[in-house]
């Protein structure tokens, strides 16, 4: 019975960390997808989109294997820190980044591609470097897409279950997120607790998304895309 606020704190912490990292990681990937002319680009796009169609358990399984003590990454991490990556918060963050990557990259890339190519050419003829063109022209004009991407990856991470269960397990305070908590309660027939926790998660997610989309709408009104 009652709400385990620790799981909420952990879930929000995970969602914030993951969406922040995805913002930094997603920008260059999305830039490359939007502007690269490499002929095999579609293969990379397909790989990034995989988590949308793949069962989270499949993704979680591979991430678990990759983080485990038999993989090069896992061995390197153990040598570095003395413990395995699996069943830690860091491991959970890594799994969640892969899981939510398309939800950040796709809106980013779509909004970058939507920026008038002539504006990008004009910036170059005015002597601006690619970085300056990105910071001063592409990114400001893509603001709605950037906000959408961050919001979606945040919400998606809040609600993840399969990957957390596979990679993180169910360790209170470290890897037990709200969705795992709800599952746990149902398993132990604590329907009232599950109901309450689910309701709080629902309200929190709705409030966050409503806030973000509200902001997004204002941004769009200030900078109407021609």
């Amino acid at each position, binding site marked *: 019975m009652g709400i385990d606020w620790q799981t909420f704190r952990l879930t929000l912490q995970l969602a914030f960390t993951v969406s922040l990292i995805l913002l930094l990681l997603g920008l260059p990937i999305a830039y490359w997808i939007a502007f690269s002319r490499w002929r095999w680009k579609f293969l990379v796009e397909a790989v990034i989109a995989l988590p949308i169609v793949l069962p989270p358990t499949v993704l979680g399984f591979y991430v678990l294997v990759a983080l485990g003590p038999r993989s090069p990454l896992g061995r390197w991490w153990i040598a570095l820190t003395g413990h395995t990556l699996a069943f830690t918060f860091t491991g959970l963050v890594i799994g969640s980044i892969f899981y939510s990557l398309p939800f950040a990259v796709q809106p980013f890339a779509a909004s970058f591609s939507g920026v*008038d190519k*002539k*504006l990008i*050419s*004009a*910036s*170059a*003829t*005015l*002597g*601006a*470097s690619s970085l*300056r063109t990105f910071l*001063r*022209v592409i990114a*400001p*004009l893509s603001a709605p897409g950037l906000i959408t991407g961050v919001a979606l990856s945040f919400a998606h991470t809040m609600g993840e279950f399969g990957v957390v269960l596979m990679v993180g397990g169910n360790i209170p305070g470290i890897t037990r997120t709200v969705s795992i908590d709800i599952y746990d309660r149902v398993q132990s027939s604590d329907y009232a607790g599950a109901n309450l926790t689910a309701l709080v998660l629902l309200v929190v997610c709705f409030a966050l998304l409503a806030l973000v989309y509200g902001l997004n709408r204002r941004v769009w009104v200030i*900078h*109407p*895309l*021609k």
Partner: protein
Amino acid sequence: MSDIRTAVEVAPISRSIPSPSAALLHAKFQKRLQARGNGFLLDVAFAAPPGFTILFGASGAGKTTLLDCLAGLTTPDSGRISLADRVLFDSFLAVSAATAQRRVGYVFQSLALFPHMTVERNVGYGLAHLTPTERNRRTMSLLEAFRIGDLARRKAHDISGGESQRVALARTLVTDPELLLLDEPLAALDASTKAKIIDDLREWNRTHNIPILYVTHSREEVFALGERLIVLDAGHIIAQGTPHEVLSAPHIETVAQLAGFENVFDAVVEAVRPERGTMTCRIAGEPGGVLLETPLVRGGVGSALRIGIRAGDILLATSPPTGLSARNLIPGRILSIEQRDVIVCARVKCRVEMEVHLTLAARDSLELAPGKEVWLVIKTHSCHLMQR
């Protein structure tokens, strides 16, 4: 004494007037385009000295690709582009300067003003390397030169068309380019606004003296601006010289259309009347097509040629006119009528379709509208004959 003074005065002047041979832009390059199914080769060689050089061609002739190659937005397959003593592109030396390093100003047809910035920020965009004070000084002086100082704090997306054109020009010129490319930036403006902007641009170039490549398809602009004219057709330069040289010898169809022959028809000589200095030509193919009386040229009955008629040389009458010197009277029906700037463009169907240009007053007093029956009146000497 007087000899010395003369020498001192003359020297700086002679340096500021470029000799015709001192071409600043040299371009010779090839670029194959695969965009539209079957390939298309842009293959050009030309030089552009300081001042206006008009680049004319139908849409799809490769004008924009040519400008893109000069600006470095597209890479030619082979060739060499040099600006003054700088090599911008050389396939043999494997040199291809980045767009941002070329100092080639480019004003696009769409202008491409940054919609999220003020006019001031747009114009100052290319001056990031300067201190804010210096940037502001240069920006404001250019805005004043183009008479848009009062717009400085307005957002780029809420100023008028003519103002946007001025902002786009100022934004490019403030960076002190060594070559200016203008891709029909003034196409949407009325004639007087256009003339004022051109005057300001000429004034600017009096001190900067750089080559300006100006893409257009308007005959008026060719004569108003052009010291030099380059005609581009299907990726190749088919004529170049002064507008007068090129346009007075309309031997190729693209040039013919540039010379104002909105109507060009294939024709067959039906009858020759050497005693009158005329002949009769049939257009629109099948027997019973439209017959036109034209000036006499060499070539017998049955020979194939081409007739060009300027849209402004055709008269329209709403009833069969009598007592006219004009020899060609053709009944037809108005298909469509539209206003372009201060000219009314009517398309008339008379087996073939003819374009006719009228004044607004003529349209109103004749109450011309689609579907109305009219007579086309064409003088013999308004029919220009060309080789086919």
